């Protein structure tokens, strides 16, 4: 799967999970850019991403994710390996 496809899927997932249809993600988007993306919402997002992409992140991967670009890279890496 290409990175732009992952971004589009993540955008839809963020809109659904954070209940905000105005969200437009870019690789530079981070938690500070989206009001609803707090630490607890981050847990929901991780769970939703893992289900949606049928992958499982490691603890260190999750803690290294500082922006959407990092999330995309992790997902892309997982999907490429499998």
């Amino acid at each position, binding site marked *: 799967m290409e990175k732009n496809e992952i971004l589009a899927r993540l955008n839809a997932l963020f809109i659904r999970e954070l209940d905000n249809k105005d969200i437009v993600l870019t690789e530079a988007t981070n938690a500070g850019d989206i009001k609803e993306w707090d630490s*607890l919402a981050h847990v929901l997002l991780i769970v939703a991403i893992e289900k949606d992409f049928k992958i499982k992140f490691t603890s260190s991967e999750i803690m290294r994710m500082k922006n959407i670009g990092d999330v995309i890279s992790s997902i892309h890496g997982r999907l490429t390996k499998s």
Partner: protein
Amino acid sequence: MQPTFNDRMRFHHVGCIVDNIEQAVIPYKAIFHFTNIGKPVRVEEQKVVICFIEINNGVFLELIQPDDGNSTLAKWKKKGIRYYHLGYSVDDLERLLGELLRSGYFLVSDFHSEAFGMKRCVFVSNGEMDLMELIANT
């Protein structure tokens, strides 16, 4: 024998989301006659007001009222989620946290809480919505 996680974590509380703490404590006073009910305390980092009720010896219910800035807890409450985390008091937070992170848990938040005299607290999860709060004893 190596002490288990369980040996090093003393159960302290279950966290429960409420709309209004003043209203929520009423039945605990009027019906259950619990007497050890703390004063509401604002926890700045979490954007909540909390209140502890001792429901058994050393075991507490933590009532959590999200403020306007905490949209996630308010949404969870609307969805019917009330009890959402377990709190444990621990002696060696740093070491235990390291072990949990190596066991598949990830750090959700790390802060000093007004509710515990500004002691360090961390929330961790295993990604299955198993939210756990660890409170440093020292």
